[in-house]
Each structure stands twice: as structure tokens, then as C-alpha cells.
């Protein structure tokens, strides 16, 4: 029995990319209608790892929901911790000690670097270069070791507590982080030589994957995707939270609107994160990491609360509606890649499949975060 692959009357065929495909980095499925190697139309299908996190929030007490935050964006779990801690603290009016705020910034920024390192390795792997992945994971390993020593976990952190932290950092962590900053600066130069200036990489990224400002605004894209399109927006600076206003850092913005701009934004962000960590370590005050008076039972007064943080992928917002009980009445998570990903359908039309997958990599998709 040998039937040829049946073509539709208009000579296009449907290529089912995913849910298991090396380029989607998870269980994302894209139904691509192809005309040869050109994409005629693409339709993203979500829902393969939907776990009802928002519903879970309604059935758990506030502290019980904290571990869920590490399971959304597994690469940038610390920032998600921060977002949730922030919204509950705002609702209950809990004061956070200054030392805790600094440590929060240090750990979140370390986590941001490790997230970008995974992206860099995986992205170059998408483009067919295997070696940078190994280098990136080597560097990321240093961060994971550091964070493991204070948080107790390596990936799905549950480090933040309402009003403070689970654990104070020690001198080993501080000296280890300083050593890491020194090492990472050298490594970033090495990446610039090995990857950034590579002619094949530049040919494949420059002028490919156009996402203009208008498209970003229509889809609500944030983070490096928006900043690669010339939109100067970073929650850390535009709507400051925690102790970010006290640090001197730049928000890298590139106006080229192509994959290479998004690539450069992330590379520069790693440098800026190192700067923030360095300043935070210098300014680190003494004191407790948990507030002296903190309600035993977290019961925010009835109301509608919102907090947003900048994760490694963009704006993560939490809207929490409380009815005064020990469970949230409604918790709405606004995750960055859910918006960033929906650009793909429109932007990839007419692209070759190789370029489209290179473009998809530049959006830095983390599937469990879209499919909450």
C-alpha cells in the first residue's frame, strides 16, 4: 500500500510541527500550511500542558500557592516568585525589610542571567550550532550552584515569602557571586567572539523575523521582543518595584525589529544584570530578611490588586481579587510569552521554514508559562 502524500487542490500541504519537535522546546504545536518550503499560514495550538494554575489559586491558601509560581516559567522562576510575593504584600500591606529586597534583586537578576544563558544555548542549537549550548550550561551551572546553596532548589524555586525570604544569604554566596560576575564578564566577551560576530548567524538573523512596533502593541508583546523593536519599556524602570530605582542600569533597546536585535537585547541584558548584582552586593545592608510583625494567616482585605514584574521574557502581571477569605477569589496571570508567541502566526507568513523556526527561537518561548 503506497499512497503518495496527498496534496490539497491548491498544492499546499499541512506540516504538523510539534507537539514533539526539536525546535519547539516543549509541547507547543504549530500547524503550518506550507507551499513548498514557504509557510503559507501557521496556526499555533496550545493546551498540551495546561495545568489549571489559575484555578488552583482559588482552591489553595495564599502561601500554599507560592510553589506553583516556580512551575510556570521554569527558567525564570525567581521573577515569578517576586511577582506573586509583590501582589500579596501590596494587598496585605506587609513591609519588606531592606536586606530582603536587595537579596530579592540579586537572586532575580542571577536567575535572569541563567534564563538568558539557556535561551542563548538553545537558540544557537536551533540554528544548528551545538557547542555554545555546552558553554552556556557550564556558566549556568555556576548560577544554579549559587542559588541552590541559598534556596535549596536548582530550578523551580520557592524562595520568596510574603514580606521576606526563606533564607538569608551567607558570605560564601556573596564571594561566589562576585567570582561569578568576574567569570561571566569574560565569558560574555567569549560569546561575542564565538557567536555574535559569526557570519552565518548574522546572515540568518539580520532582516529576518520582522516584528514592528505596531505589531508589538497589537499583540501586547513585552520584554526583549518589544525592546528589539525599539519600544523602550521595562517594568523595572517604567513602573519601579522593589529597590530597582536605587540601581544604575541601562535598558538595552534596538530599533532594527529583526531577530538579531532581539538577540542583542538579551546579550546586553546579561551585562546589565551583572551590573545590578554588583551594585546590590556593594550596597547590601545588614538586618533581618523577614519582617518582625507579619500576619499569621494571610487574609488580604477584599479588593482588586495588581502587580507586575519584569521577568526574563517580559512583563509578568498578576491580578488578584480577594474576597477577604484565606483563598484568592480570582487570580489572573498575565504571562509574557503567551502574548509574544501569538506574534508568530502573523509574522511568519511567507517565511521559509528554516527562517520561521529561527524566528520562533528569538521569541524565547517557554511553553509551561503560556499553557498555565
Amino acid at each position: 500500500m503506497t499512497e503518495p502524500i496527498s496534496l490539497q487542490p491548491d498544492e499546499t500541504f499541512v506540516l504538523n510541527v510539534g507537539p514533539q519537535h526539536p525546535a519547539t522546546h516543549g509541547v507547543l504545536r504549530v500547524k503550518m500550511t506550507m507551499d513548498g518550503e514557504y509557510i503559507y499560514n501557521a496556526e499555533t495550538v496550545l493546551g498540551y500542558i495546561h495545568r489549571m494554575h489559575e484555578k488552583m489559586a482559588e482552591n489553595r491558601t495564599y502561601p500554599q500557592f507560592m510553589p506553583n509560581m516556580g512551575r510556570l516559567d521554569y527558567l525564570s522562576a525567581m521573577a515569578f516568585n517576586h511577582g506573586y510575593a509583590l501582589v500579596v504584600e501590596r494587598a496585605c500591606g506587609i513591609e519588606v525589610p531592606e536586606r530582603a529586597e536587595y537579596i530579592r534583586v540579586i537572586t532575580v537578576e542571577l536567575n535572569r542571567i541563567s534564563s538568558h544563558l539557556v535561551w542563548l544555548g538553545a537558540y544557537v542549537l536551533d540554528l544548528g550550532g551545538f557547542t555554545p549550548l555546552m558553554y552556556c550550561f557550564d556558566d549556568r551551572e555556576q548560577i544554579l550552584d549559587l542559588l541552590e546553596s541559598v534556596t535549596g532548589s536548582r530550578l523551580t524555586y520557592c524562595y520568596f515569602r510574603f514580606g521576606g525570604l526563606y533564607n538569608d544569604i551567607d558570605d560564601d554566596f556573596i564571594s561566589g557571586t562576585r567570582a561569578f560576575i568576574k567569570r561571566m564578564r569574560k565569558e560574555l566577551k567569549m560569546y561575542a567572539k564565538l557567536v555574535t560576530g559569526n557570519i552565518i548567524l548574522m546572515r540568518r538573523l539580520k532582516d529576518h523575523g520582522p516584528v514592528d512596533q505596531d505589531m508589538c502593541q497589537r499583540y501586547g508583546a513585552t520584554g526583549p521582543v518589544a525592546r528589539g523593536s525599539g519600544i523602550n519599556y521595562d517594568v523595572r524602570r517604567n513602573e519601579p518595584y522593589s529597590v530597582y530605582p536605587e540601581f544604575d542600569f541601562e535598558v538595552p533597546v534596538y530599533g532594527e525589529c529583526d531577530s538579531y536585535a532581539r538577540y542583542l537585547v538579551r546579550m546586553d541584558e546579561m551585562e546589565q544584570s551583572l551590573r545590578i548584582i554588583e551594585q546590590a552586593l556593594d550596597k547590601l545592608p545588614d538586618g533581618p530578611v523577614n519582617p518582625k510583625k507579619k500576619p499569621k494567616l494571610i487574609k488580604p482585605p477584599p479588593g482588586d490588586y495588581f502587580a507586575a514584574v519584569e521577568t526574563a521574557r517580559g512583563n509578568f502581571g498578576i491580578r488578584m481579587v480577594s474576597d477577604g477569605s484565606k483563598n484568592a477569589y480570582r487570580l489572573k496571570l498575565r504571562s509574557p510569552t503567551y502574548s509574544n508567541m501569538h506574534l508568530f502566526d502573523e509574522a511568519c507568513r511567507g517565511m521559509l521554514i528554516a527562517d520561521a523556526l529561527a524566528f520562533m527561537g528569538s521569541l524565547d518561548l517557554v511553553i509551561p508559562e503560556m499553557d498555565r
Partner: protein
Amino acid sequence: MSLTLFNVVLAVFIAICFVGANAAYLVWCERKGAGLFQRRPGPMENGPWGLLQPPIDGLKLMTKQLLIPGGVDKAIFMVAPVLAMFPALISFVTIPFSNSIVAHPIDVGVLMIFAFAALGSMSLLVAGWGSRNKYSMISSVRAVSQTVAYEIPLMITTITIVMISGSLNLGDIVQSQLGGFWHWNIWPLQKQVGFNLLMPISFLILFVCSVAETNRAPFDLGEAESELVAGFHTEYSSMGFGLFFMGEYANIVIGACLTVILFLGGWSCPIGDLGFFPFTHNVGWFLLKIYLIIFVFIWIRWTFPRTTIYGLLNLSWKYLIPISLFNLLLTAGLLKVF
């Protein structure tokens, strides 16, 4: 007559052994090389320095089930892996390892290698067509356009060399380059052709083409794993996959041999024949040269990202073919003048 037949069988047998050993241990070299470039040791568990890894991998592949998916064209599906390995094996028959070590010198050796190389790329087409998988299908279409685009500059460059040495016999081509590295075809200074500055560029063209012909990174578009899963061998398991794998490495050896014979003086000693053992023209130099070339193959693979299919075709049709054609013309003119 029977003696000739016996000789041929023996030659083929030795060629098979050489190719088999090379294919198996080049995988090991590749993995060790990858380890070298990635700050890790590579395979270490089986045997000293992981030297037993290739036979164990082979055993694993052989004991796995050969899965034939439903709806495939069974005959074509089964024939494709054999087609990947077989031409590479046959090509070795005509490769001269030294003045005396050549399985069967053929007067049109160059032609034969090209004929079988073309047959080898047929296997990619056949595998992709027979697999009944859209990824494999795209991959085989890519493989064909890639082969067509890269065989042309490869052949034109080879014709240039054939014109210089005046023979299609690989042994004769090496003979014309004996007497020190300044006689090699890679250098622009040649007695017969005067001063042809394009020769080093021709060497680069041949090298790039042999990388592209063997479907190696950065030109591994046929099996681009982040786009086409595994390309033409997506549906293959067990030794079906194993034969594709071995065929790839056998083709690498052929590509390296061809590069060395055409441009780097084959088995000739780089500093001329001094008469005493390590510096005489012998098989050692040939092996040293081909493994150096293979090391560069491995180095390139683990350093560069993959190109795209249009980048690949542009490179061939816009740059390699015009330059190699120009070099052919130039060489012909110089041959006429000098």
C-alpha cells in the same frame, strides 16, 4: 583471469575493512573532538578513553528492531541505506594510498568517484521519498538541490586539476605533484601553468564542496534536526540508521582523500623525497593528510551554526561556480601560453 578476480575481491574486502574501521572510529573521533571543543571529556566509560564505544554502539544498533512504518514503499525504504553505504565502499577501490597501495588503479578514477558520489546522494532522495514522511520529503528535495549545486563546482575544479596533470588517473595526478610541498596543486606557482593565483581559492572551493557533498555541518540541511527532526532518516531505526551514519563517515573519508589527492600531493612527502624512511613518499603522509582534513571537518562542524538552503544555493550558484569556471578558463589559457 581468476587471479584478477581474486585480486579484486581481496581489494574490495580490504576496502570494506578500511571503511568499516574508519566509519566506526571516526564516530569516536567526532565525539572526542566535540568534547575537545566543548570542554568535556567525551566518551570515557567503555574501555580506555572510551575506545570500545564504537563496537558497543554497533552492537546496540544491530540488536534494535528495524521498524518499518506503515504505508512506506518497502523496497525503496530498504534499499536506501544500502545505497548510502555501497558507493562509498566502491569508491575506495580506486583511491591510491601510496605508489603501490591501490586496490585497483583505474584510468578514469576521478570519473568513477564522481559517478558513485552522485549515486550516494541518490540514497538521500530515495530514503526521503520512500519514508512517507513530510519532513523526510522536504529533506530529500533539499538534498537533491544541494547535490546538483555543489557537484558542478566540484567537477569544474577537478577538471582544472585534470588539465594540469593531464590524466584522470588519481595515481598520475599525485605523481605530477611529487617533489616537495611547493609542487602541490594548491600553490599558484606551477611549472606547467605559470602563475595562477586562483589555485588556493580553487582548493577552498573543493573543500567547501566536499563538506557540502557529505552533508556535514554547516551544510547539513538534509538532516537539519531543529527544522526537519532528522530529515531523510527520521523513519529509520536500527542498522537502517546505522548504515546512513556509516555512509556519512565513509563519504567524509572519500571527500578528504579527494581533497588530499587533487590539491595536497597525495602520498608525497612535503619536503621532497630525502630517501630515508620517515621522510620518503609513503602511505603515512597520505593518512596524516587525510586525518588532518577530517579534523578540520570536525572542527567546522562543532563551531558553526547551520546555513539555510537559499544561503547554500546562493553560495554555490553566485560565487563558487563562477569562480571555478573562471579558474578553469584561466588555467586553460595559461596552459596554452606556457
